[in-house]
C-alpha cells in the first residue's frame, strides 16, 4: 500500500487555452506537513479544489487516502477536512454550524469543539457574517478539526490574519493535529510560515510543480556558490540557476556543492563562499527563472 495520502498523476485543469494546473505530479507522505507554495495564480487553489471535488480535472488522476478522487468523493470527504474558502453559511452561528456539521461526519467530536472554541476564543453565538476574518478562519478550522480527519487540506489558512491569530492556528495545527501522526497539506505564499512548520514543500508555478522535497534536504543540500574567474561555465548539471553580476558568478545547486567548488577551483576560478539557502531564496531562484527546471524529488 502506498504511503502517500495524496498522489496526483498528470493532473491537469484547463480553462480554455489556459492551463491552471499542468500535468501535476505530486505526493504527500502520510504524517507529513506539506507546504504547497507558489505565487498568486500559480495553481495552488485550483489543485486543492480538484482534490476536494469542487472542480473537475480536465485530465489526470488524483488519489486521496488511497481513493480515486473522481470515483469515491464521499469517502474522501468523510476522512478529510477541507478548508478551501473561509466562507460558511452566513446566517448560522458557530453553534448552528456545529449542529449542521455534526450529522455529516461519523467521527465528529463535540469535545474538540468545546476545546478549540475555548482555546481559540471563538464567539460561537455570533452569526458567521458578523465574525472578523480571524474568527471566521478559526471557526472553519475548528469545524475541520472536530470531524477528526486523517488529512487536513488548508488553502492559505493564515491569509489576512494578524501574527497572534496566525500563531494560535499554527500551534493548534502542529501541536495538536500533526503530532498525532496525521497529515496536513497546506497551501501558502507565506514562505516563513511554511518554513517554520512544514517538513515537505512543493513549489508550484504556472501550474507545474517545480520542486518537491523534504525541507531538511533543501537545508542540507541546496547551496549558493559565489565564484570569481574567467570563462566560467554558464550551466552545470547540478546548477538550478547561474547568474553573473559585477564580476561575480553565482551558482545555485541542488546537491554536490563541494564537488562543483573543487571542479571550478581546478579550472582556476576562486570560490569566494558556499552559502546555505533558505526556502525563500530557493523559491525566488525557481520561480524567478524564465524557463522551468523539471520536477526534482529528493527522497
Amino acid at each position: 500500500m502506498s504511503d502517500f495520502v495524496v498522489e496526483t498523476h498528470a493532473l491537469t485543469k484547463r480553462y480554455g487555452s489556459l492551463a491552471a494546473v499542468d500535468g501535476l505530479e505530486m505526493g504527500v507522505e502520510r504524517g507529513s506537513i506539506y507546504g504547497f507554495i507558489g505565487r498568486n495564480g500559480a495553481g495552488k487553489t485550483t489543485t486543492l479544489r480538484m482534490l476536494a471535488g469542487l472542480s473537475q480535472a480536465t485530465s489526470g488522476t488524483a488519489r486521496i487516502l488511497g481513493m480515486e478522487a473522481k470515483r469515491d468523493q464521499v469517502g474522501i470527504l468523510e476522512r478529510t477536512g477541507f478548508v478551501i474558502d473561509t466562507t460558511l453559511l452566513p446566517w448560522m452561528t458557530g453553534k448552528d454550524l456545529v449542529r449542521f456539521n455534526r450529522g455529516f461526519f461519523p467521527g465528529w467530536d463535540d469535545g474538540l469543539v468545546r476545546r478549540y472554541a475555548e482555546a481559540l476564543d471563538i464567539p460561537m453565538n455570533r452569526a458567521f457574517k458578523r465574525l472578523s476574518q480571524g474568527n471566521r478562519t478559526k471557526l472553519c478550522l475548528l469545524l475541520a478539526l472536530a470531524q477528526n480527519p486523517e488529512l487536513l487540506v488548508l488553502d492559505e489558512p493564515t491569509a489576512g490574519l494578524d501574527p497572534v491569530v496566525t500563531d494560535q492556528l499554527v500551534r493548534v495545527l502542529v501541536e495538536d493535529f500533526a503530532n498525532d501522526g496525521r497529515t496536513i497539506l497546506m497551501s501558502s505564499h507565506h514562505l516563513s510560515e511554511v518554513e517554520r512548520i512544514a517538513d515537505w514543500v512543493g513549489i508550484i508555478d504556472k501550474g507545474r510543480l517545480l520542486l518537491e522535497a523534504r525541507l531538511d534536504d533543501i537545508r542540507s543540500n541546496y547551496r549558493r556558490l559565489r565564484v570569481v574567474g574567467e570563462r566560467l561555465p554558464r550551466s552545470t548539471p547540478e546548477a538550478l540557476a547561474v547568474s553573473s553580476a559585477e564580476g561575480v558568478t553565482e551558482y545555485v545547486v541542488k546537491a554536490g556543492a563541494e564537488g562543483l567548488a573543487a571542479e571550478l577551483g581546478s579550472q582556476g576560478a576562486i570560490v569566494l563562499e558556499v552559502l546555505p539557502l533558505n526556502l525563500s531564496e530557493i523559491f525566488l531562484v525557481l520561480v524567478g527563472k524564465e524557463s522551468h527546471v523539471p520536477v526534482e524529488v529528493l527522497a
Partner: protein
Amino acid sequence: MYLWKYWRESRITFGIAMLLLAGLTALSLRGHVVIGGLDERQYANVVNGMLYAAAVPMAIVAWVLGSFGVGRSLGEGAGSYLFSRPRPRAWFLWLDWGCGLGLLAILVLLYNLLTSWMAHRIMRAGGGPFSGQVSFRDLAEPVSLIHLMGLNAIAIFLFCGIIFGVVYLWTILVKNALGVVMGAGTLACYVILSAVIKHNFGYEMPDLLYRVYAISLGGVHGLQDHLGLSLALRAGIVALFPIAAQQVLNRIDI
C-alpha cells in the same frame, strides 16, 4: 441537519403564507355571503373561480421558495463549504427539492381547503339541492366539492412545481438566488410566447396552470378528457427540472 437548514431559510416565506391563510380564514368567518339567486351552472363557475384563486398566492410562494437551497448557498460563497461535506451533490439538490415541494404541498392543500370551504358556504347559503355538489353542463351527475378540491389541489401543486422548478434550475445555472429574476423572466416569456403563437398560428401551447375543467365562453362544461394522463404528464414535466438541475450541478465547478 440539512433539512433544518432549508427550513431555517424558508420559514419566513412559509410563515407569511400561513399568516395570509389565517387572515383569509378570519375574514371569511366574519364575512357574510351575499351571492344568491344563482342557478347551478352559475354556481359551478363561482366554485371554479374560487378554487383557482388559490393558484395566485401559491405561485408567488413557489417562486420565492425556488430561490432557496443550493443556488442561494453558491451565491453566498458557501458552495465550497457545502460541497466539501461528505454527500453527493445530488443529495443536497433532492433534499432542497423535497423540502420545497413539501412546504408547497402543505400550503396548497390548506389554501384549497379554505377556498372549498368558502365555496361550500356560498352554496349552502344559496340553498337548493346542490349543496356540497357541483353540477356541470355536460355531466349527468354532479361532482362533489371535495372531489373537485382534490383535483384542483393537484393541478395547482403541479403548477407551483413548475414555477419552483424553473426558478430552482435558474439559481443553479447562475449560481445565485438572483435566479428568481431569471425564473420570472422565463415564465413570463413562456406566457408571452404562448399568446403570440396562439394569435399568429392558432395553436394553443399548454397553460402553466392545468385546468381540470373544460371551460368555454358558456361556462364550465365538465372535467377534462384524459384527466389522469394529463396530470401524470405534468408531474413528469415537474420532475424534469430537478433532473436537469442535477445534471448541471454535477458538471459545474464550484
